[in-house]
């Protein structure tokens, strides 16, 4: 399995690990990472990625409500400043730069890794605040496995998941399907209406289904081939905000994503060739506004890279990437095409025991015929005083304007420059294993500037148009505590996270600009989280608590919404039989009935639950 510990594994194991790893592991060891492992993902099997990250990480998830659009903010950056990489391929939309995290089912993923800090030299445009790595991996020779998971919950939430896996000595083939329906007609107090009436959420129904098919073939001792196909359809109604009386709009999202990768792993070098084709359709209909909008985008990505050592103290990776994006919507006056080529290289110097590493990453991207800013990062990481781990990283970043920014009629501005800037961060961790207790403490500090931030504002003739006008300075502190006690029967886990992030506008656009040095809207200054889990044999109870501080809703920080605290409880019981495992679980969200809004006047549900049954069956190969 791919995990952070693999970073410190010896070079001899490299070939084994390589099968599943992208270059992130080797050349980002100076970045702060958070791994969400398969055990955690299993606890969130009937949730989407937005729920998972809101509960298990300090990435701020800006959600419009249950099952609605959810985007991410890393370290005070914007929603298009997070690279979301599915097995190394960027899923950010070429049209608007975002991806709706509520459309990614957690059970389609094997691990999720969060990389904090800028990583454009490794991942290209968009990896500004951080990167979310969504990984699929597999193990050969496990036999035949069947997994089913069914859950029912509040507001007519129904989910079914089914997986089949055939794992032979040299071939693994898996198929996962899911189906999810919900009415989401929860009750809430409408504080925006006279008398603050209790209302039932309207127009909030969703229907989603999808499949993921993966194949892994060990061609011979050195070569591995894989293919993945991910299809998903989502049909959602868009609920009104509390200040709107009615909303009848719907949104349909349909995506097909195909990837393939060939790996050659020799002792002295490795070669990877990977390709992807993404097709994304979005249909938005608001019959009240008589708005019927269709958009359709495609991306074709080809990447080639090779990795080798020159001496026993180093590792070099060189690669090229070509990405072709194409998109059309009625609001562009034609279909636009964008061709992006990049050359990238990474060099890591390390001590023989791998305790100390120094890494340089560089990337040069060309957009159509335009030369984009050269991007690099340099980092050092190492182990001091036995239990302490230190990481220092300095990175340049950039984000190219989206198709909407460039081509939208009216207002699109084809002369926009890429956003760019520099980030620095330092992480210190203390890790100690004491018999049955494992303790991990981590503190990180970061500093980042984003120049030429694209903002839409009316121009002189009153037409909304994007300009490179904002300059944003973000800085903050992040703390983490993790204590784990484990015996053969018991497991106790206590963890806490706390973030303090300032993300302020540094550029005055007008005289006496009241937004100067003010926090960006919807970036909480403080948030924290606690997790407590206790498990005895196959029975566990866990409690998760989230606190999100004030969020400003106007750029001069005169308007804001209140902090909120939400508690969630989960109970789970496993019954292990020969060759099979049955899991019964119950999830209770918002157990203290907190009335809260993530986005102003967007209702969130009070106490709600999900009950589920998962059955796993495995028959080993003979």
């Amino acid at each position, binding site marked *: 399995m791919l995990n952070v510990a693999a970073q410190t594994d010896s070079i001899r194991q490299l070939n084994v690990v390589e099968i599943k790893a992208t270059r992130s592991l080797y050349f980002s060891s100076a970045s702060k990472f958070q791994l969400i492992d398969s055990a955690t993902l299993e606890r969130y099997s009937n949730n989407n990625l937005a729920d998972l990250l809101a509960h298990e990480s300090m990435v701020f998830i800006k959600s419009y409500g249950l099952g609605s659009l959810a985007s991410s903010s890393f370290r005070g950056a914007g929603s298009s400043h997070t690279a979301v990489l599915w097995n190394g391929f960027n899923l950010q939309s070429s049209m608007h730069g975002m991806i709706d995290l509520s459309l990614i089912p957690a059970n389609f993923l094997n691990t999720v890794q969060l990389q904090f800090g800028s990583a454009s030299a490794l991942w290209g445009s968009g990896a500004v605040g951080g990167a979310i790595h969504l990984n699929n991996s597999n193990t050969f020779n496990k036999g035949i496995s069947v997994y089913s998971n069914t859950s029912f919950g509040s507001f007519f939430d129904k989910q079914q998941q089914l997986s089949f896996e055939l794992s032979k000595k040299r071939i693994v083939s898996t198929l996962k399907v899911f189906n999810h329906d919900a009415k989401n007609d929860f009750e809430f107090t409408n504080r*925006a209406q006279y008398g603050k009436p209790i209302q039932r959420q309207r127009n909030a129904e969703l229907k989603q289904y999808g499949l993921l098919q993966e194949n892994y073939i060990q061609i011979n001792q050195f070569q591995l081939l894989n293919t993945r196909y991910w299809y998903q359809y989502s049909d959602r109604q868009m609920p009104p905000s509390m200040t709107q*009386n009615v909303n009848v709009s719907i949104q349909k999202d349909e995506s097909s994503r195909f990837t393939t990768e060939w790996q050659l792993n020799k002792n002295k070098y490795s070669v990877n060739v990977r390709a992807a084709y993404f097709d994304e359709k979005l249909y938005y209909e608001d019959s*009240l506004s*008589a708005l019927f909008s269709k958009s359709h985008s495609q991306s074709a990505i080809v990447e080639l890279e090779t990795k080798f050592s020159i001496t026993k103290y180093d590792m070099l990776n060189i690669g090229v990437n070509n990405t072709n994006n194409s998109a059309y919507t009625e609001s562009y006056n034609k279909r636009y095409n964008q061709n992006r080529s990049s050359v990238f290289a990474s060099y890591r110097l390390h001590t023989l025991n791998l305790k100390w590493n120094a890494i340089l990453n560089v990337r040069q991207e060309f957009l159509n015929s335009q030369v984009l800013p050269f991007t690099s990062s340099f980092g050092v990481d190492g182990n001091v005083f036995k239990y302490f781990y230190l990481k220092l990283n300095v990175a340049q970043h950039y984000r190219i304007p989206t198709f909407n920014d460039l081509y939208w009629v*009216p207002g699109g501005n084809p002369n926009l420059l890429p956003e760019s800037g520099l980030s620095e961060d330092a992480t210190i961790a203390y890790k100690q294993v004491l018999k049955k*207790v494992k303790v991990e403490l981590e503190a990180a500090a970061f500093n980042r500037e984003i120049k030429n931030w694209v903002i839409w504002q009316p121009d002189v*003739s009153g037409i909304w148009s994007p300009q490179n006008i904002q300059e944003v300075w973000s800085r903050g502190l992040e*703390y983490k505590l993790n204590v784990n006690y484990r015996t053969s029967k018991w497991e106790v886990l206590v963890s806490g996270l706390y973030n303090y992030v300032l993300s302020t506008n540094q550029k005055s656009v007008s005289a006496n600009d009241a937004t100067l040095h003010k926090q960006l809207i919807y970036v909480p200054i403080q948030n924290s989280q606690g997790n407590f889990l206790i498990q005895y044999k196959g029975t566990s109870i866990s409690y998760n608590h989230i606190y999100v501080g004030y969020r400003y809703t106007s750029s001069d920080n005169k308007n804001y919404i209140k902090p909120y605290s939400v508690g969630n409880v989960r109970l789970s019981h496993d019954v292990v039989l020969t060759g099979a495992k049955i899991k019964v679980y119950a999830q209770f969200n918002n157990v203290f009935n907190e009335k809260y809004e993530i986005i102003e*006047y967007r209702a969130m549900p009070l106490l709600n639950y999900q009950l589920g049954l998962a059955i796993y069956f495995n028959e080993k190969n003979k």
Partner: protein
Amino acid sequence: MKTNKILLFTAITFGTIFTSCKKDDPEPDPTTPTASTTYDNGVFVTNEGPFGSGTGTLSFISRSGAVAYNDIFEAKNTFPLGNIVQSMSIHNTKGYIVVNNSGKVEIVDGSTMASEGTITGFTYPRYFLGIDNSKAFVTEWGTGGLAGSVKVVDLVTKTITATITTGKGAENMVKVGNKVFVACGGGFDNDSVVTVIDALTNVVDTTIFVGANPSYIQVDANNNVWVLCKGKQNATWTALEQTGKLVRLNGTSYSTELSLSFASTSSQPTNLVVNAAKTTLYYNYSGKLYAHAITATSLNATATINRSFYALGIDPVNDQFYGSDAVDFSSNGKVIRYTSAGVTIDSITVGVIPGNFYFK
């Protein structure tokens, strides 16, 4: 020993976490009034509010004061006005606040702002015009902002009683005698008419073609009607294929007496207002404020104020100009006051996107 070390380290870390939990409570806004404040002798400013799911607000600037009372509706009624507050009028001592994206009109006491009910059932309503003690007209853009109508409202039952179809994007209205002139600015599409309605019978009298997208309308001292047409964008929104126009209609015969075209193919004229004597009109064009005497037969080349405004008003009491600046459309806006000669008096912070004035 080792366990102690871990405990110590844990304690230090938690200590650091809690001490760094800085209090970040925002300060209360000193411009929010108490619930007992009354609002007379001044101007109401409707603030559209942030786009998306937010709420608009209502501000009040007294003629003698140098600061505004902000968010006066919620301060009195403890609930917000709703999404995109478009405009306000006072009719028979009651305030009628038109909330565009919430499709409603909030009724308040014109002095205390105490809520007196809501009229619902509109689709993108824009402006309110009181006709008599029991009747009012409300313009709306209709479905998709692609239609246009005047809704007839019964002020006693607070319900919509009839719909009068007009040109697309019914906008500002003026009343001359018993006739109501409705500027039809095109909404999210284009149109070029003024619809004239008989206020006694609620029937359309006639439709007058004036010029592309007439959004602003005023009556002068001679009871003639002035219409400001914004012009029409080409298909790619790169230039105006029809430039703006200032048109004078005879208030009784409806004939077009004067039609003056603006030269610019990029700038659209906006914000037509008239002074207290109703002898001079003012409008924004090309980033400036221009005057137009009702006797003039050509457009003025010299500006009165070298600045354009998001919304514009003239105080009928003293002819002072009120111009609004929406700044970045995401923070509190400003209202700048000028003397009738165009000399700056002061600048006052109001709510997010100040879009209309009502002088009381």
